[in-house]
């Protein structure tokens, strides 16, 4: 149990600014997910916290102690790596117990702690094996085990599920979340997968080109995205963005783009003409892709089977619209009237 605070954390690689002044604080036991496209600086942020990179400026506080310059081996953090990074020449038990051994724990203490962690993760049968003899999912569990056995102050996850197949990813996602809640260990979790981000996070930080575009709970980010980037990054399919002037929608302020999620678009008897060009039936619902009369693309989602006609008319309910500034992309307050 620990709190983490980042203060104006910056990182440059040569002349490139990878992180531009990140401020962040994690409460004890909180799971914060860092999400963003590749190259947005999310992994760098995690590596700065771990101490594997040194920040250009700014501070990292763990339990209100400045650890910015502290060596990674003395930060009491455990990291789960994308490729697991298990020690190939050690058995599962040795892998999990290595940190305890270095810490100077007695062999019987190590044994019982490893056994406890192994039974929590269902690894009891595999303790004598080497990583080379394990499947991807099992390696993932061992990597988790290695992290939890130490009961560290902080868990760091660097895209831990990206090497697993889709089905296993869903199971492991739930399992990691359950474990983290149960152990109550403060966690930072990096992913590029927005579903993973939404489902696992207490709070999300959406990164955009080295900046935190928004830090909030998943539902808050979904319902009130801070800018165009966040609006289109979170949610699938991505939010529709329409220029109302071109589409001929009346009563809109100038220099404003409107956004609407696919599920909020309504098929109506009168409204904007919409030509569907691709229909994706998903069983319980249908995605319909097409264009408005002005040529702007739009996707709508509706429950049930696909409509019979390709030529539809749609309406955009006023209270489901999001407004963004044309030039800055920032969210504008909802209009009334």
């Amino acid at each position, binding site marked *: 149990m620990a709190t983490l605070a980042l203060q104006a954390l910056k990182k440059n690689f040569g002349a490139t600014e990878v992180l531009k002044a990140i401020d962040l604080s994690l409460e004890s036991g909180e799971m914060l997910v860092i999400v963003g496209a590749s190259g947005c600086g999310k992994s760098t942020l995690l590596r700065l916290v771990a101490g*594997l990179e040194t920040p250009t400026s700014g501070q990292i506080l763990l339990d209100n102690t400045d650890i910015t310059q502290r060596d*990674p*081996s003395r930060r009491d953090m455990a990291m789960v790596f994308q*490729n697991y*990074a298990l020690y190939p020449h050690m058995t599962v038990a040795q892998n999990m117990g290595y940190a305890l051994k270095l810490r100077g724990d007695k062999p019987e203490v190590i044994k019982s702690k490893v056994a406890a962690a192994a039974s929590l993760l269902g690894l009891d049968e595999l303790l004598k094996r080497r990583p080379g003899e394990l499947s991807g999912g099992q390696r993932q569990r061992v990597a988790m085990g290695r992290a939890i056995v130490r009961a560290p102050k902080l868990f760091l996850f660097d895209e831990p599920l990206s090497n697993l197949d889709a089905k296993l990813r869903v199971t492991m996602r739930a399992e990691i979340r359950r474990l983290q809640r149960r152990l109550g260990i403060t966690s930072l979790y990096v992913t590029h997968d927005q579903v993973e981000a939404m489902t696992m996070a207490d709070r999300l930080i959406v990164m955009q080109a080295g900046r935190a575009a928004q830090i909030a709970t998943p539902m808050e980010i979904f319902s009130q995205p801070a800018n165009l980037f966040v609006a289109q990054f979170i949610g699938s399919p991505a939010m529709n963005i329409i220029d109302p002037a071109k589409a001929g929608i009346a009563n809109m302020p100038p220099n404003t783009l409107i956004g609407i999620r696919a599920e909020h678009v309504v098929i109506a008897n009168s409204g904007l003409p919409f030509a569907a060009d691709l229909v994706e039936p998903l069983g319980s619902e249908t995605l319909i892709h097409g264009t408005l009369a002005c040529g702007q693309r739009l996707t709508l989602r509706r429950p049930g089977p696909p409509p019979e006609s390709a030529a539809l008319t749609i309406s955009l309910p006023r209270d489901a619209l999001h407004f963004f500034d044309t030039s800055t992309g920032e969210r504008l307050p909802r209009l009334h009237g």
Partner: protein
Amino acid sequence: MRVKPDCLAHAILLLGVALFMLPIWVMVAGATQDAGAIARGGLSVIPNPSGFGIFWQALFYGGAAHAGYPVWHMLLVSFAMACGIAIGKIVISLLSAYAIVFFRFPFRRFAFWTIFLTLMLPVEVRIIPSFAVVSSLGLINTYGGLTLPLIASATATLLFRQVFAAIPDELVEAARLDGAGPIEFLRDMVLPVSRANLAALFVILFVYGWNQYLWPLLASSSPAYTTIVLGIVQMLAPDQMTPWNLVMATTTLAMAPPVIVVVLLQRAFVRGLTESDK
């Protein structure tokens, strides 16, 4: 796998084996025969069964030329020198490669290229200055003098650098987060992971050290530090009758230790040179 044996391939292999074995056979057979007969050119390729005692006899053969130091002593000197060279070289190269691969320090590249440069300076090239240095340090006729100039070279450093560079960064980072410092990482990760390479290198360097001739010739003038390779040469006396059977028996004995080392470590040797899964 093909079931039918490939006769031609086997024939060629057998021919190759015969070609390599023939001199050794002649040597072993020759050792069992009468010295005079060999000198007259009557060397038979059929061993004389009653002459096998010569190997035991050769072990204690010294003669005036060696001031009483027999062949077994020379074998020990050679063994100590070969081990010293192999172990010394491995320790130094391991540490220097470890520093170059895993640490960022000023002039790292410069250090690497300086080490690399020694590849172009084998003992034969720098023999006069090496002798001058060793002699002014008072190391002539010591094991230090026999081994140190041969320990300093880049081959092993280069090999270890390749092996270490193949260790994934994530592994290094995982170990650091687990609390491993430089010494622990070397002991618990680097050494076990490169064990096969260590064994392979030991074999190569042991044989290299064992076969040294030119440097020991200069660095050991005292019979107490005569290596077996030098000893064999000194047995060839131009002004008197050479005891050829003893020379051949000694040569056979001189071949044994490297062969034993290769046989003992051959599995690791092959793995270290071919396997690359890290």
